[in-house]
C-alpha cells in the first residue's frame, strides 16, 4: 500500500509517516494541495491520501475536489485530517470526494480503525 501525506507542517508529516509506516504503508509527502496534485499527476499507484485542510497555496478541500474532478487515481481513498469538526464542513468534504474524516487530536488506534474501515488494512 502506498500513501501520500499532505500537510504543511514537516513535524506533522513525519509523525503521520511514522504511524502509517508502522501499520505497513509506504509513504510519500507533499507540502500542500498543489504539490500533492503534481505528485499524483507524475506518479501512479497511490492507494491512500491523508490530507490536511488548512494549507498555503491550495487547501485540502480544494485539493480533493480538484483531484476527483480530474479523475486522478480514482480508486485512491482520501481521508481528511483536521481539527475542524463542524458537520457542514464534514458534509462538504464528503461531497467533494473525501472518503473519510479523522478529527485531531487522534490516537494511533483511531487512525488504524479508520484504515480498516476503508479496507486498507486487515
Amino acid at each position, binding site marked *: 500500500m502506498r500513501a501520500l501525506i499532505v500537510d504543511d507542517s514537516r513535524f506533522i508529516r513525519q509523525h503521520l509517516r511514522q504511524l502509517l509506516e508502522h501499520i505497513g504503508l509506504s509513504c510519500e509527502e507533499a507540502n500542500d494541495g498543489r504539490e500533492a496534485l503534481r505528485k499524483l499527476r507524475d506518479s501512479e499507484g497511490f492507494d491512500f491520501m491523508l490530507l490536511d485542510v488548512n494549507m498555503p497555496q491550495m487547501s485540502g478541500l480544494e485539493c480533493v475536489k480538484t483531484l476527483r474532478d480530474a479523475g486522478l487515481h480514482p480508486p485512491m481513498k482520501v481521508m481528511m485530517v483536521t481539527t475542524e*469538526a*463542524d*458537520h457542514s464542513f*464534514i*458534509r462538504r*468534504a*464528503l461531497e467533494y470526494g*473525501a472518503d*473519510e*474524516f*479523522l*478529527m485531531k*487530536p*487522534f*490516537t494511533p*488506534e*483511531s487512525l488504524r*480503525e479508520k484504515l*480498516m*474501515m476503508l479496507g486498507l488494512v486487515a
Partner: protein
Amino acid sequence: MGCSDSDYDYLRQVVLARSANRIDPSRNSLFEAKLKPVARAAGAANLEEFVSLLRIDQTPHLQRAVAEAMTIHETSFFRDCKVFDALRETILPRLIAANAASRSLRIWSAACSTGQEAYSVAMLLREHFPALADWDVQIAGTDISRPVIEYAKLGRYRRMEVNRGLPARMLVKYLVRDGEEWEVLPKLRSMCAFQCANLCGPLPKMPVFDLVLLRNVLLYFTEEDRSIVFRDVRRQMTSDGYLVLGASEQAEDSTRLFQPEFATGCYFYRPSAAP
C-alpha cells in the same frame, strides 16, 4: 497507594465473587489505578486502608463499587467491522425473514459499556433495513457498571470517542454536535434502552432475544463462570436466535448449548436443538 499480596488476593476475591472478572496477579497495578477514586470516596487515605475498611464493612454497595471499578470498559463504535458485515449480510436478513409475521426484533447488547455497540446496531438497522421502520425493534444494553449505563443513556460522546470506528457519513447523519460533544439523535436513542445487569447474578426481567451480542467479556471469566453465563444467555434467547461472541472467544463444547456457524468471515452461534 499500595498494599500487601494478601490484600491484593482479597480484592481479587471480591471482584471474582461480584462480577466473575478474573484479575491476574500480573495486573495488580490496575487495582491502584482504578480503585483510587473508590477508596477516596469511602474516606480511605490509601489502598491498604481501603482494603482494611472493605474487610470490616461487608455492605454490598462497597464491594459492588470495587467490582464495577475493575470492569474493563473498552469499546468503540462498530468495533470489529467484520461482525457488523456479518450482521448486515447474514444474520439480520435471516432474522427479518424469520420474524416477518411478528414484525418484532429483540437485540441484546450484553456488557454494553458506554453504549456504542447498541447505537452502532441501531445505525446499522436504520441505514440498511428501512423496512424495519414500522417494526417493533428494541435494543437492550446492559452492563454491571452503573456509571457506564448512565453514560450510555445520555448518548453523548466526546471527540476521541466519535473518532473511533464511526464512519464520517454516520457521524453527520445520526449524531448532532453540541460544542465538544456529539449527541446520538432521538430516533436512535428511542430504539435503545439501557439498564444495569450482572451477567453472573440473577438477570433483570428482559424479553427473549433474537440476537445477543456478548463480545470480549467472557475472556476474563473462569471456565465455570463462562458455562453459567452461556446457560443463562441461552435461556434468554429464542430457539432460533443468534449469539455473537468476540473474535477471540468461543462457546465451550462442554456447554453443548450452542452450535457454531461461519458466514461472512465471522463465527456466530445458534442454540442447539436439544440443550
